[in-house]
């Protein structure tokens, strides 16, 4: 199953989009194989032990450790062991497995930035607890030297802690200020610094109010938000990078001295390249030798293999199916049609840059407002009382009260909860704002081949043949590795057919297989070669002796959950559109089967992107679901996009969300989770605003003691976090 889903590991079309694969190709042979597999379906202790025990039984595997939080297993094994060999083992144990790129894995395993943030968070938490204890004594009425002592001890704890823990905010604020604009970190840094300075000043003068506790609690809550945010991003980023399939960009070049194995980057125009059956074209070119069939599904969405003979042009990314081919390169590297597709993506992507996340929208309103308010309070008090110290105290109180603690937690707490929930359902959010964009979707565009369908043909007319014919067909099909033959073999075996005694079976590349049965020649293959007629659907023709050729017809089997997903999306009131590069007949058949009223067939990649753009211009928010190279521009151009794990690197890079499993069923669920998540974010903003509306007037008139500041801050942060956690419970 996996073998058909995954593109073969050979010279790659997507290497332009997969630096990981290139890096991998350049690395030297390791002494020990460190492998990683993604296991989207594991969920319990029994799954973990089952996978680990199954893997450890394989000779050569030294250790296997499942990480349930990340749904993956890391394997240390002898150098010869490959992931391809281990995937069947895990599948035999009953779990779906996909290969992860261990090269990028090593880089993300030591998440330095995350551990650094966690350490700062821990130090801030430790300091906050101690300072709060001291503050409680002050709030409950400590006076005179005792109060001063407590303030000094607090200062001694807080100053070094702020210097260490609040660094990320200071750094970000400084970068923003130098670039000449305001972000959330500017009011945060200003509030922390002003609180510290006024508190120190008050402490020196034995004043009543010191805001050390507020300053440190602020840092703690904001770091919590920052850490959650970072973790969600880091998990998504690493998983998306590691998913890159191992398509090593190498090719066999024919020279006078023989064949040599070279990186695809070294190929030049005019080189002769040998492409074996199952291999992918590394360049654009012209066939000079050999007969075969080409699979263009990933490039154009066509399911019907194309006949290939000398003189025909081929594009990088097409898969050679039956016979070895020699290709003369006419365009390499950046000039290939594949690379021009990447340029389309770059053009399409600029459209999405216009999206402003909710948090940024809030910050834009918020940051200047806070500064103006604090400034006015300061000036007002200075003019009215003439006391600089009082005015500065009031300004500090306003800044602390308005400091965006709850705002800082509002978005990350929700995205953490939501993406955790989606990850459990098998969806990986790659982009921070993807959830918000997903919630706005009103139109869903599906690609056909490889997205709604599994990309594997299934036999549809087994009943139309006599048992004799089926037995002959099975014997012939077993002699070929062509996808149709493989599917035919599987279907007939499942029907309990035994192969007939056919002798002298040979595969004729590009045409089919032939043999001799009871002194009569038998052939299974293309229509023209067997004497068959025209057929609108994918078909293989069988001819026994000199009788008429009969057609085995195939249809692309539906991907798991495709029917349910489309129905559920329709029920949710989303408009569903099918756009495919495949023939009209094939697309119409699928559209009727899934009851999709709007469909477009024979669409070129540019057409797909143009149609998405037209929809967007008409005010629609489009969700594009696609897997092929012909979809990449459309994926990048859509408001938000999803691609399955079996998609090519380029498609996964261009999309915001990756489906980890095989089923499409989680998509409607993801839409409703996204809608709830966005609702929670808005609620959180409302909660944070209400706290400010109540507390700010108190601060401005000078009634805000450090106790009120601490209460307002903690209460709002906790309310916001709890509101976000409600997401986990909803079904």
């Amino acid at each position, binding site marked *: 199953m996996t073998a058909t889903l995954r593109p073969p590991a050979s010279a790659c079309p997507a290497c332009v989009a997969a630096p990981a694969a290139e890096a991998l190709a350049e690395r030297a042979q390791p002494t020990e194989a460190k492998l990683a597999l993604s296991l989207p379906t594991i969920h*319990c*202790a*029994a799954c*973990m*032990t089952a996978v*680990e*025990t199954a893997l450890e039984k394989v000779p050569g595997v030294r*250790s296997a*450790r*499942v*990480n*349930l*939080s*990340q749904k993956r297993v890391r394997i240390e094994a002898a150098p010869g062991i490959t992931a391809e060999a281990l995937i069947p083992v895990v599948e035999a144990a009953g779990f779906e497995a996909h290969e992860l790129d261990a090269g990028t894995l090593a880089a993300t395993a030591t998440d330095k930035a995350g*551990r650094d943030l*966690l*350490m700062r968070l*821990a*130090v801030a938490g*430790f300091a906050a*607890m*101690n300072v709060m*204890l*001291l503050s409680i004594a002050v709030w409950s009425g400590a006076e005179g030297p*005792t109060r001063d*002592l407590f303030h000094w*001890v607090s200062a001694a*704890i807080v100053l070094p802690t702020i210097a260490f823990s609040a660094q990320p905010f200071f750094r970000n604020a400084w970068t923003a200020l130098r670039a000449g604009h305001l972000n959330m970190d500017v009011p945060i840094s200003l509030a922390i610094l002003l609180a510290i300075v006024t508190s120190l000043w008050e402490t020196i003068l034995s004043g009543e109010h010191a805001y050390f506790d507020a300053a440190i609690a602020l840092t703690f809550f904001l770091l919590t938000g920052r850490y959650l945010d970072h973790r969600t991003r880091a998990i998504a980023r690493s998983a998306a990078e590691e998913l890159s399939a191992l398509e090593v960009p190498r090719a066999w070049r024919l020279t006078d001295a023989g064949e040599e194995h070279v990186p695809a980057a070294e190929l030049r125009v005019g080189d002769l390249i040998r492409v074996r059956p199952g291999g992918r074209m590394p360049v654009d070119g012209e066939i000079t030798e050999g007969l075969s069939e080409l699979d263009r599904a990933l490039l154009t969405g066509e399911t019907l293999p194309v006949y290939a003979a000398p003189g025909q042009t081929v594009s990088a990314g097409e898969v050679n199916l039956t016979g070895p081919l020699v290709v003369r390169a006419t365009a390499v590297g950046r000039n290939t049609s594949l690379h021009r597709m990447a340029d389309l993506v770059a053009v399409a992507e600029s459209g999405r840059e216009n999206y402003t996340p909710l948090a940024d929208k809030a910050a834009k309103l918020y940051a200047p407002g806070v500064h103006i308010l604090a400034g006015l309070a300061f000036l007002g008090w200075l003019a009215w009382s003439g006391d600089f110290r009082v005015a500065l105290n009031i300004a500090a109180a306003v800044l602390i009260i308005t400091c965006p603690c709850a705002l800082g937690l509002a978005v990350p707490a929700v995205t953490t909860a939501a993406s955790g929930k989606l990850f459990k359902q098998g969806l990986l959010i790659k982009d921070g704002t993807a959830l918000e964009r997903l919630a706005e979707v009103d139109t869903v565009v599906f690609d056909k081949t490889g997205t709604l369908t599994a990309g594997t043909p299934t036999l549809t007319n087994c009943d139309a043949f006599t048992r004799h014919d089926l037995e002959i067909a099975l014997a012939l099909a077993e002699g070929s590795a062509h996808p149709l033959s493989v599917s035919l073999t599987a279907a007939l075996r499942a029907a309990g057919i035994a192969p007939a005694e056919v002798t002298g079976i040979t595969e004729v590349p590009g045409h089919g297989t032939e043999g001799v049965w009871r002194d009569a020649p038998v052939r299974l293959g293309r229509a023209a070669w067997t004497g068959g007629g025209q057929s609108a659907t994918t078909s293989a023709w069988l001819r026994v002796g000199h009788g008429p050729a009969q057609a085995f017809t195939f249809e692309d089997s539906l991907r798991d959950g495709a029917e349910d997903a489309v129905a559920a999306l329709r029920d949710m009131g989303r408009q569903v559109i099918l756009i495919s590069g495949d023939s009209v007949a094939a697309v119409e058949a699928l559209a009727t089967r899934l009851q999709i009223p709007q469909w477009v067939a024979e669409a070129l990649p540019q057409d797909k992107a143009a149609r998405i753009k037209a929809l967007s211009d008409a005010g629609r928010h489009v969700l594009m679901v696609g897997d092929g190279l012909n979809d990449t521009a459309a994926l990048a151009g859509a408001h938000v996009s999803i691609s399955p794990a079996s998609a090519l690197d380029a498609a996964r890079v261009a999309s915001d969300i990756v489906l980890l499993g095989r089923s499409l069923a989680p998509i409607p669920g993801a839409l409703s989770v996204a809608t709830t998540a966005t609702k929670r974010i808005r609620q959180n903003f409302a909660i944070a605003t209400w706290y400010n509306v109540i507390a700010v007037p108190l601060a401005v008139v000078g009634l805000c003691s450090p106790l009120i500041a601490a209460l307002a801050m903690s209460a709002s942060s906790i309310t916001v976090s709890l509101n976000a956690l409600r997401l986990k419970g909803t079904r």
Partner: protein
Amino acid sequence: MNILAYLIPISLILGGLGLGFFVFTVKSRQYEDPEGDAQRILSGKYDDHPKQD
């Protein structure tokens, strides 16, 4: 109130110990798979000794 001269340093030291332990757990990577570790205790396979990396 002289007792404060003892109590404050003591509370700071105790808190510092807690922080130290936390730093140790971060360094020894005990937060890499919280869900898996929670599930592993349910399996009898690791009763004799924990699963080594």
